[in-house]
């Protein structure tokens, strides 16, 4: 059998193309099937913190501890308000035992912190047993039955939001009150904030008023340079905040 160079090249190219294309590439998906393939793509939870509105009352921290059964007097918390601490609010200008003269305060503000529910969570990457993971709506959860308490994730989180739960002896962290948001309620900290400084958003819902703020106003995230793609957005963040 003879074969010209032209025919050989034609058949070789055609054969290669046919062999790399899977059969599934030729099936047509109905809209429902396409939707099911990217399951739950209509929810991606995010958070918005307005530091200009926070007065440092710490009621969010109190509500979080009560809601999520975090031991009240242990020095661990899923969320906090930075000037440091925050569970009992800030009722004076004493910092590290020293009274600060009001004339020496150039600017002062409070920064509520919580888990950033990163798109690339470093805490999940380091888990040796698959006990922490990202759900399809973007929240990072900890499997308390599966966690061995090694503490790698606590070390890996660049935001320091993870801690060792003193009762369950596992890693613990903020999960945006997953038991509440999945029932259509607000997280406990959002509910308890009297000043609207904390808000929850579904980034996949273009009509969500908080999503509109995140997408159209000037917001910032913490430690953007780490490439973790955090999903807690801040209004009025100062360059001194890390």
């Amino acid at each position, binding site marked *: 059998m003879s074969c010209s160079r032209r025919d050989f090249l034609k058949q070789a190219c055609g054969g290669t193309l046919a062999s790399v294309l899977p059969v599934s590439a030729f099936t047509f998906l109905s809209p429902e099937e396409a939707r099911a393939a990217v399951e739950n793509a209509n929810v991606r939870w995010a958070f918005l913190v307005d530091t200009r509105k926070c007065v440092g009352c710490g009621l969010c921290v109190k509500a979080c501890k009560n809601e999520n059964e975090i031991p009240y007097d242990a020095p661990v918390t899923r969320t906090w308000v930075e000037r440091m601490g925050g569970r009992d609010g800030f009722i004076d200008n004493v910092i590290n035992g020293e009274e600060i003269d009001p004339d020496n305060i150039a600017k002062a503000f409070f920064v509520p912190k919580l888990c950033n529910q990163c798109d690339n969570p470093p805490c999940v990457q380091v888990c040796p047993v698959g006990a922490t993971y990202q759900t399809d709506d973007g929240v990072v*959860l900890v499997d308390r039955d599966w966690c061995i308490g090694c503490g790698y994730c606590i070390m890996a989180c660049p935001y320091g939001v993870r801690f060792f739960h003193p009762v369950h002896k596992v890693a613990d962290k903020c999960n945006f009150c997953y038991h509440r948001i999945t029932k259509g309620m607000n997280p406990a900290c959002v509910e308890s904030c009297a000043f609207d400084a904390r808000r929850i958003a579904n980034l996949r819902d273009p009509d969500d008023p908080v999503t509109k703020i995140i997408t159209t106003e000037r917001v910032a995230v913490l430690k953007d340079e780490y490439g973790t793609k955090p999903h807690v957005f801040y209004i009025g963040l100062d360059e001194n905040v890390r």
Partner: protein
Amino acid sequence: MKWHVLRPLWLAIGLVVVILIARQFMVPEDFGVHGDSFTYNFYRLSNVQEWKDFPVKHQGRESCVECHEENVTTLNASPHAPIECENCHGPSVGHPDDVELLPIERAREHCLRCHASLDYPNHARSELPNVRDRTHKRRRECVTCHYPHDPREKPE
């Protein structure tokens, strides 16, 4: 192969087989990759439902108003309207069954969370009515003179 080589080899193979069999029984069926990424979505699927079933403690004003309509109406018309009932009364889970469960927070420190003057320039705290803890009616509970459900009123 010589016997002294085979003996530890069988031992090693046996160990691997034992571990593989044990793994079949110990790893839950729903443990695996549930999503696009092996790195981020390798987990036990039923744990998601376990977290969804975590008990809700703060039930919100809607549950308070069912019995305490008068107080909620007063609160809603007052400058304290944005403050949740449960911020001062504690999480209401299990409340109607066990009334003792809701201790009312009357401490001076609780009010000072928002109303202590901090002298911060250009800050939301400075825009609230505020007092100096050291000079304002020291050691008295705020609620003896101010009615928390409507701070414009005096308590009865």
